[in-house]
């Protein structure tokens, strides 16, 4: 594995208690692979990615586990060491293209800032690289657009700029946190296609954070499903869509509107996500689960291997989580 997260724990201390935003989460991503992390808001998917980037800030803290990258544990790195990796070997794009670019600087300068931070290139060469990047992400007349300010661009264009910026130092891992959520549907497809194309071209690994299973189906190779800070299911994308094991995954799939089926009503997972400071004793999904058993309310099932894939549910194994 190129990037391997092992038993990651990230906690937030808030007034009402401690939120275990990421609880014992492990996943890895290979070179050239797209791993999707799927979940509702509050599932811990974004916090996982920010943990990998070393961008968790007070009151949050990575409290356990390892993030292995090229045989080195990123959790143990100092701020300075992380700054060298961030934006260079591992880079990230965010959900909000409208606000993620600094409004007072030209987009060219913002892309060049990354390049100048991580390479020894001269300003003129950095500029050339930046123009090349804008061209790569499909921005027309890139040389002129270098002089644009973010407010002069559309959301889709800005997300392309974000991608150009993230890719400007040829990263090995790209973390894309809901990269298309804020965009129009037509632009969404373009951006996903772009990410897919670039991963083939550059050979980078992509960690795709999303709540949208449609996006997953189109782009991902493997899928991790998270709920309340834990992984509940992990499988190849084909298996997830054809044979979901966890009731939560099933629920997510059922709630996608489908053209070919003629249903009166869209399925909805009942109930709401529990208060993160007061998670139930047993399985976090128990209260909302259609297949809930007595045991589910008392004990937390373990994440177990089931024929090359993983699931956390008593329907598939009686094993209990040791580390609750």
């Amino acid at each position, binding site marked *: 594995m190129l990037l391997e997260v092992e038993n990651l724990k990230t906690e937030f201390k808030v007034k009402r208690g401690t939120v275990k935003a990421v609880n014992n989460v492990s996943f890895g991503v290979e070179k050239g692979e797209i791993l999707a992390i799927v979940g509702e808001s509050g599932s811990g998917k974004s916090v996982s990615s920010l943990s990998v*980037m070393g*961008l968790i800030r007070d009151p949050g803290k990575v409290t356990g586990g390892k993030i292995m990258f090229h045989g080195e544990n990123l959790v143990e790195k100092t*701020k*300075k060491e*992380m*700054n*060298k*990796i*961030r*934006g*260079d070997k591992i*880079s*990230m794009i*965010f959900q*909000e293209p409208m*606000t*993620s*670019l*600094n*409004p*007072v600087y*030209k987009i060219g300068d913002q892309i060049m*800032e*990354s390049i100048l*931070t*991580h390479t020894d290139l001269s300003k003129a060469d950095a500029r050339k690289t930046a123009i090349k990047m804008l061209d790569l992400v499909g921005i027309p007349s890139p040389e002129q657009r270098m002089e644009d*300010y973010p*407010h002069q661009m559309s959301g889709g264009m800005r997300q392309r700029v*974000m991608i150009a*910026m*993230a890719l400007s130092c040829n990263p090995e891992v790209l973390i894309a946190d809901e990269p298309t959520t804020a965009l129009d549907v037509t632009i969404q497809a373009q951006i996903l296609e772009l990410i897919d194309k670039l991963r083939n071209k550059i050979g980078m690994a992509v960690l795709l954070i999303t709540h949208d299973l449609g996006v997953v189906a189109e782009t991902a190779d493997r899928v991790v499903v998270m709920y309340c800070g834990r992984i509940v299911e992990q499988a190849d994308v084909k298996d997830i869509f054809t044979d979901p094991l966890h009731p939560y995954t099933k629920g997510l799939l059922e709630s996608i509107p489908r053209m070919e089926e003629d249903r009166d009503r869209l399925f909805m997972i009942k109930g709401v996500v529990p208060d993160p400071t007061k998670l139930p004793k047993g399985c976090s999904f128990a209260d909302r689960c259609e297949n809930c058993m007595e045991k589910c309310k008392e004990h937390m099932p373990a994440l177990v291997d089931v024929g090359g894939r993983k699931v956390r549910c008593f329907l598939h194994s009686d094993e209990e989580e040791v580390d609750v």
Partner: protein
Amino acid sequence: MIKYIIKRLLMLIPVLIGVSIIVFFLLRVCAPDPAPVVLGQHATEASMQEWREANGLNENIVVQYVNFIKGAVTGDFGESYYTNNSVLNEIGSRFPATIEIAIFAIIVATVFGILIGVVAAVKKNSIIDNASMVLSLVGVSIPIFWLGILFIILFVKILGWLPASGRIDSMLRPEGGTGFYLIDTLVQGDFEAFKNALWHLILPGVTLALYTLAIISRMTRSSMLDALNQDYIRTARSKGIGEGKVVLKHGLRNALMPIVTVIGLQFGSLLGGAVLTETVFAWPGIGSYTVECITKSDFPVIQAVVLIIATIFVLMNLIVDIIYAFLDPRIKYGKRES
């Protein structure tokens, strides 16, 4: 841009005419007759009548106003009732003293205000942050003249470090030049005099600065907290640039707009505060002079001072708006935004 500036300058004219009407109305219509004050209580009615006649106070009020405006446009604000010097000379000779202390104060307030505000925002809820909050609260609550009094008691009476009044020891006073002693002494290469002038400037300058400093640090803190919470800060961090650069280049740069507004507005009230500070420290500027003129009913001087300060104030507002355009590429004056 130039079109916009010209348009704004033209818009100043009605404001200044309005200000002149307000002041003129207050001093010539509402205020009591200055003649007995100027000539003394024992002056005869005849001499007072003669004095009024000589100073044009017997004219119709509208005529008086028109004459005043006619003069003001050419820089002629009439003569002081007391010295028979032209008002412009009286003010001009004192103006550098006030500008010197005001600029010193605004520099102190801006530098330390922004510094404290940035540190407080970055270290939110730390001891430094709490101390800065207390400082800004005290800064806006303490009367400026009492602060000056406390400084004099501490630094002059108890510690004996600094002088209590005046701009410079009289033997060292620079001749000619700009009237800005710090500049004149430097130009003349008289470092002893420069040091002496600076020593005189510190207490009144810092006194005048504190209120503004409190306001600026407060505004910087909240504006920085706002900026540091923006998505582009996270983007900057994700690029792997150092935290200092994230805070200053990406955070402070975006937080500057409201700070600049405050600084611009404060320059006006700083000139107001100079009235009190100059009185406490016997600083020979237009602030203490204005108070003196008010107690002596020297109205031509007061009219001119108010008009000049109002002009500076509105010009500062214009300058702030121009700085905006440089700070924020989204602002384009004169062009319609899509």
